[in-house]
Each structure stands twice: as C-alpha cells, then as structure tokens.
C-alpha cells in the first residue's frame, strides 16, 4: 500500500464522463456514492460549461445498501425524461463495482427507449485515459455502418474530446489546414459527435487520429473493417506537419485513384496558403530558430515529461526545430513506454545501458529527476510546474493533467504550423533569455537580487486562479516562501559533501542568483569527484574551467 499525493490521470469514470460530455445525445450515469459526483465540477469549472455536463450520478447511499434499494432504474428513467439521449452509458465506481451487481439486468429493468450500454470500466484496472479510449472504441464499433465514400475527399478527425489538452484549438488548426487543402471534414469525434455521426465514420476517405491517448484504436479499426486509411502521427512541429500534409494528400489521392468517378487529385497549395493571412510563411519557427537571439538555445537542455503524444512531439520539436539539447524525458503512461522509448531512441542521452526514459506515475520521482538534471527548460504537466517552482527552474505545461490556466480563451493549438508557433513562443517566454543573460552572467548585478527572497517572478497565479478554495491563495503563498527560503539547497546531494571556504563562498555569491544553485551543485559534484573536502577559491576556479562555466 502506498501513500498517494497526486494523480497524473483521473479515474475510470472520469474518462467515461469525458466521452459522454464530448458527444451529443450520449449521457453517462455513474452508479456510485454521491462523492463520485466530484468529476462534474471539473467540467463546469475548467471548461466553464454553460450547461450541465452530460453525466449523472445515480446515488448509492449507505442506507440504500442496507435496505437493498437500487436507484439506477429510476435514475435512467429520469435522465431519459429530462434529456432524451440516444445512448446512456452506465458504469460502476470503485466502491460499487465491489458489490458485483448485475448492472446489465438492473439497467434493462428501466425499460428506457434510449439504448443503455453498461460499460465495464474496472477502476482497479484502468484509469481515465484507457477508460475513455476504450469507451470511444466501443461506441465507434457499435455504430459505424458500411456505406459508400463521400463524393469529395473527406476525413474523420478522431481524438478531440472534452477536457483534452488544447483540443479545441487543435481542432481549429486541423480544420484550417484541411480547408486549405480543399478536404472536407466527414466526422469529428468524440467532440461534438452524435450516434448518427458515428454511423457515418466509414464514409470518409481517411481518418486523422493524432493523439495516441484517444481515437487511434477506432481509427485502426475503421481501416481494418472498412478500408478507411488511418493517419495516426501527430503533426507537432513544422517538419512533422509538412510530412503529415504530404502523407495526407498522398493517402487521399490513392483513395481517389481507386474511385470510379476519377476525381481530380489534390495538390499541395503554396505553403503560404496555410498562413493566417494567406501571404506569409505558415510558421515563423524556421526563421525564428535561425535568428542570432536563439543561438543561446544550443546550450540549453530540456527535460520533457507527460503523456505519450505530447512528450514525443515536444522532444522532437525542441531538438530538431529549436536546436536545443534533450537532458531527459519521461511519461506517466506505463503502457506507452515502449512506443515512447522507440520514438525517442535517437534523442535521449545515452546513459551506459542506453537511452533513459523515465516511466513513472509517482510525481516525486519526476521531481527528483528534474532536480538531478537541473535543465534550463522543463516541459511537463501541472505537477512539474509546481515541482519546478520549488526548484526555481523554468517550466511550461505541455500535457494533461491541466490546471484552469491551461484552459485559456485564445487560439493556442499544439498541432500544425500554428501549434509550432505557439510552442516556440511558450518556450521562448519560459526559458531565460539570451543576450540579457550574458550581461547578467558577466557582471552579476542587474538589480535582480530581490528575486532571491521573492522567488522567480513571485509567481503564485495558480493559487490565485485556484478552482474554488478561498484559503488556497494564502496557503500557496506560505508554501512558496517556505520553499524559496531553502531553494539554494537542492534536494539531491552527493554522499560526500564538500564544505565551502570563506573566499570561495564570497565568489559563489557573485554568481547571479538564478544560476547560483546550479553552479554550487556542479562545483560540489566536481569537488566530490576529485576528492576535495574543502572548496577553496582555487578549486572553484578550477571547477569552473573544467565545467566550462
């Protein structure tokens, strides 16, 4: 038994709720104690849904258990009377699944007109992501019907979903690129899709399913069952987007070539057609990365942690398109570890046995790896952002789980050319700057020392924007100042701990505060490796020469 402090994924029934809330005419009913209703506000708060999320908790109370009352049939009838859904998905919770009730039979007894599907989402065997993907897969298989292709080239877009990471913006971006190519969208699912839309899935010429976490199972099944080719790579970054566009055009033209009516093949328009104004480069990243300002990024090392899709996409983008170094990467999706490792084999630093991919859902282990690496940029989840605040390292959020701050109003896609621009901007504004940094490094006095007590930028916005708790701000501030008061003592230390002489300490103090912790640790490690018990001014200089900074 372990002590859980933070979860990278929600529960199985949260995954079910995400699919139901994405779709039209689909409603989830949780056969669960009232407490399980907590997933509801995640939707109404983070996505600010102006209607009730498409899920209902059919309450099981202690008294119901004692008296043998089962409210599920009544709940199903009420849901039907109120909302008239086409399908109701029923699932148990972590507690009610232990009751081993025959939910199929109980649900049937409600005699609803709507189809009731009992989804066996065992919360002890699957979490949010697999429960969501599994349910979507099931729905696609259940409702897709063989039919002829649409007259004009069209695609399905599978994967965008309620509470997905920047999914709304990604969808806009994909639609824009498809419109530029002259390709129609057959069905988007699960976001906004009805059962009728799922029926029409096989009418598409191809399926785009950019996220490993949701929709690729259904896409592959459509390929096997109906011959609808699946494009399952994620166009993250400029080069991957160009490649993806090329493959999409080729795939659609292959389908067109088999079409009796011989439609005119698609042609790649000039790339400027993909820009927002139709005249510019579709992305500014290739030029941006070559500007003198960005040269300093060659020496910046990044650590990336998240789900499978965004971890892989981000590592490649940082390395291939921004010319950064990769200090390490990892994922909390254990079942995707092999794929991520294979994708990143050429990117991860070789560490004796081979590239080291961190695979864990224990956030402390991720924080520890980050502390050990002290990278110049961390790309992670909301949890890594917190860890990095404590370590005083710059961090940007590139994967779920998210915070309300990752659900912004403006167009911020991750995919496509527009996504490359969003990511590059985010990297640039997150990491420490170039020329400015030289000046500070050189003279060590830019009047920034106040930051030492205040923390980097005094960022406490997540507490301010906390979901509900009025006491949260104060708590966050307290935590923040407590952590920063000890931020010059990294959590990981070498077993032999050299002491600093007075003159060396004076010199160390001259190092700008925001790199001082790292310099201190590097010099200590150097001293320990070379058997110095005391770090004198001479050894500090020697270490800095040896370490190149």
């Amino acid at each position, binding site marked *: *038994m*372990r*002590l*859980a*402090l*933070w*979860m990278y994924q*929600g*529960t199985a*029934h949260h995954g079910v709720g995400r699919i139901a809330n*994405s779709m039209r005419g689909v409603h989830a009913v949780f056969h669960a*104690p*009232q*407490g*399980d*209703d*907590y997933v*509801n*506000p995640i939707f*109404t*708060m983070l*996505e*600010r*849904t*102006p*209607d*009730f999320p498409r899920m209902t*908790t059919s*309450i099981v*109370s*202690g008294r119901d*258990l004692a008296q043998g009352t089962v*409210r599920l049939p009544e*709940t199903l009838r009420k849901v039907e009377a*109120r909302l008239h859904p086409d399908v109701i998905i029923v699932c148990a*919770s*972590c*507690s*009610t699944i*232990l*009751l081993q009730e025959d939910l199929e039979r109980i649900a049937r007894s409600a005699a609803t007109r709507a189809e009731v599907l009992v989804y066996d989402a065992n*919360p*002890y*065997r699957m*979490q949010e992501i697999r429960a969501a993907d599994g349910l979507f897969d099931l729905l696609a298989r259940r409702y897709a019907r063989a039919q002829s292709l649409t007259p004009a080239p069209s695609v399905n877009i599978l994967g965008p979903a309620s509470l997905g990471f920047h999914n709304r913006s990604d969808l806009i971006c994909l639609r824009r690129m498809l419109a530029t190519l002259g390709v129609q969208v057959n069905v988007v699912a699960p976001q*906004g899709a009805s059962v009728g839309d799922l029926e029409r899935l096989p009418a598409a010429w191809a399926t785009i399913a950019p996220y490993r976490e949701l929709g690729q199972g259904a896409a592959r099944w459509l390929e096997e069952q109906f011959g609808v080719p699946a494009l399952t790579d994620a166009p993250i970054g400029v080069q991957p987007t160009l490649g993806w566009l090329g493959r999409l055009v080729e795939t659609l033209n292959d389908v067109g070539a088999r079409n009796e009516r011989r439609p005119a093949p698609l042609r790649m328009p000039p790339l400027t057609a993909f820009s927002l104004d139709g005249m510019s480069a579709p992305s500014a990243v290739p030029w941006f990365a070559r500007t003198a300002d960005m040269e300093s990024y060659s020496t910046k090392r990044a650590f990336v942690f998240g789900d499978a899709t965004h971890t892989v996409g981000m590592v490649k983008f940082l390395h291939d398109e921004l010319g950064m170094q990769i200090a390490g990467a990892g994922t909390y999706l254990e079942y995707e570890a092999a794929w991520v490792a294979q994708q990143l084999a050429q990117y991860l630093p070789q560490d004796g046995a081979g590239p080291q991919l961190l695979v864990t859902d224990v956030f402390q282990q991720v924080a520890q790896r980050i502390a050990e690496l002290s990278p110049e940029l961390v790309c992670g989840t*909301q*949890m890594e952002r917190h860890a990095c605040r*404590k370590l005083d390292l710059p961090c940007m959020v590139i994967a779920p789980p998210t915070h309300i701050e990752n659900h912004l109003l403006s167009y911020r896609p991750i995919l496509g050319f527009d996504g490359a621009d969003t990511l590059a901007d985010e990297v640039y504004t997150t990491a420490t700057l170039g020329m400015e940094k030289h000046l500070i490094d050189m003279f060590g006095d830019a009047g920034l020392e106040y930051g030492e007590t205040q923390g980097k930028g005094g960022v406490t916005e*997540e507490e301010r924007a*906390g*979901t*509900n*708790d*009025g*006491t*949260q701000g104060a*708590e966050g501030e307290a*935590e923040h100042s407590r*952590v920063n008061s000890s931020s010059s003592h990294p959590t990981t230390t070498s077993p032999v701990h050299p002491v600093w002489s007075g003159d060396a300490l004076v010199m160390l103090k001259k190092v700008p505060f925001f790199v001082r912790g790292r310099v201190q640790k590097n010099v200590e490690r150097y001293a320990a490796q070379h058997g110095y018990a005391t770090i004198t001014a001479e050894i500090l200089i020697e270490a800095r020469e040896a370490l190149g900074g």
Partner: protein
Amino acid sequence: MAATILKEDGAYHSFCGLTCVGWLYQKIKDSFFLVLGTHTCAHLLQNVLGVMVFARPRFGVALIEEADLSKPQPDLAALIDEIVADHHPSVIFLLSSCTPEVMKVEFEGLARSLSRPDLPVLFVPASGLEYTFSQAEDSVLQALLPFCPMAAPDDRRVVFLGSVNDAIADDFRVEATRLGIPVAGFLPDNHFSALPPIGPATIVAPLQPYLAKVAGRLARERGATVLSSLFPFGPDGTRAFWEDLAAAMGIAVDLRERERQAWERLEPHLAILRGKRVLFTADNLMELPLARFLKNAGCTILECSSPYINRKFHARELAALDGVRIVEQPDFDRQVHDIDLLQPDLVISNLATTNPLVGRGVVAKWSTEFSFMPIHGWSGAATLAGMFTRPLQRHRRLDPLAHDPVWLAGMMS
C-alpha cells in the same frame, strides 16, 4: 413553531465528507489526515480542493489497489511510519471512504491497532455513502471528544464548537471577554494538545451549523449544556447568539443597539438585497442560517434546501425561517425545473452546478465559498453580505450581452 420540512430523494450535488480535510488539516496544525481510499479519493482531493499540489501536505490517501481488495484488513503500519518520519504529527485521523466501507473494513479496530502511546490514530467516518461535505467535521470532532479533559463540576465557562480561523477565534474571545463570559476554549483548537476542558457546567456554543452529533454527545457524555440559539451569522444571528450565551451564563445583556448599528453599516448591501428572491440548492450545510440572514435582510427565500437538517440542533433557525419552503435531501432536477419557472434573482449552489445555472440565465453563487470565508460574528457581517451582493452587482454591470445565446455558441458542443 414546527417548520414543515419536505424530504426528497437526495439527488443533489455536493461533495463527500473527505473534503473537510481541506480546511481541518490546516486548522489542526499538529495533525495528519490519512484517508483509506482509492484513486478516486485522491483524484477528488486533488481536483476539488486543489490542495494536493503542495510539497508535503499533512494529508494523503492510503491507496487501495486491486491486490488489496482481497485482504481482510489493510496493513497501514509502514505508512504510519512514513508519516511519522515526515511530519511528526501529534494525532493521525484515519478517514473512511466508500470502498473500504463496502469492503467492511473494521475501522475502529484498525485505528486502535495503529495507535501508539504517544500517537493516537483516530477513526473518522467520512465516506460519501453517509457523509456530505462539512458533515465530516462532526466526525472529526467526535473523534477528538475523548481527548478533551474533563472540566471540574463548577467550571462554568464556554467552549466554542466548530473550526474557525484564528482571526475569528480572536474575535469571539474578545467579544466574550467584553460581555463578561469566561472562555474555556475552542473545539477544535489549533493543536491537538490544546483541547478545551469540557464538563457538566460547560456551555457549548456551536459556531457551525453542521455539528449536531458531536453537540449531542457533549451533552450526553459530559453533561454539558449545548446553547440553543441562532448561529452567529449576520447582525441578527450574532446578537441572538451572544444574548443567549450570556443568559446561559446568568448575564443579562442587551445588544439591540449593537445589532441596529450593524445593520446600518450593511445598508449599501441591504439596498441591493431588499426584495430579491433567493433559492438555496443544498450543499454546504450552512443553508439554514444563511437563508435566515437573507430573510432578515429583506430577501424572499423561495426555497432553502440542505443535505441534512436536525430539528433539535437547528430548532431556532427553523423557527426563524417559519413560512419558508424548507427541503432536506432535495432533488436537483426538481430544483432546476423550479428555477426555470420561478426565475430567482440569486441561486446559491454547488461548484458543479453554478456555471450551468448561470448559463440558464440566472445569477448563481458558489455555496462552497461560504465554508472558507470569515463570515462569523459582528466583524464577518459585511463579508457575509458582500458574498451575496457581489454576484448580483457584477451580473448587473455585465448584463447587456447575457441574453443572446450566440455568446454561448460552441462553449459546449
């Protein structure tokens, strides 16, 4: 006057008892709150309270995973060691949740077996099968009860019941002193070691309306007198609370003028509240006193619903709400239907339902927020009133676009 309390099916939106951890771990500073639960419990605390992200919070979930389901009694000894090493708590509260309840984990025995001479482990029933939101604070205080020293038979002092922050506690001490009321302490206090003595001469003055059971036990087991008054919210409640408490101590005080002045200071708020029609959907168990304050401030209460109502503990509030439609364990669907029909000026509702209600064109306010705001006593009256008037004023300022559905297009596919 016996108010009519309608009882419905309990299909309302709120949180389970585990959420009380959010404020109690901060209140009792030498404590640790250990939930025996599942991924669901951890995900709940992480999302709803948004508090799990702090480095080493003084609470955590002992995670029941698949392999643990077949074990008769969970083994928590190693976790207790880990908690002791990391936090050195004076007391550990072991909270039940739905899954171990269904597994029929024997919590009393488990807590006893984990207790050490210097570190009691106290069982706190809090599962969502039985407890709603702040109700579990009642369970925590009941667990603390045996550790309150027995007061001498002639120790006639007041013990304030319910967790409040330090500023409010100071306020109540000062006010009591001013009125000549001797104070024995607060249950809970900031530290496990500082629990107040309670005996047959003690007057227990409840500050929070969700503590009926511990109040009953203090009367039964210690012979203490539980003050029956209004809860100290708003000028009306605060005056009744202090006058009744003083009377219980044999002191006659007249706070009519004080109350008048307090209302007078609220006039800018009252000008907004007068004539407003308000509906409470049920969530934080503070609905009765909050509705009573609004009624006395000039509002019409269309419905006051609460997850749990105790006729004895809430007697005075119920009497003050005479004529108001009061519902226990309401049905939220019926409420939405009524809201559509009645178009209240203000709805007080759970986090889950507030934005969707706003989406339907009513002004709605988070009920959860009342649990975390300093709204007690004379000094809290303005904050309390402001919590109702702010959403009303804000929506009035923003109104012009609200009624054209185009501004909601695409917000929910």
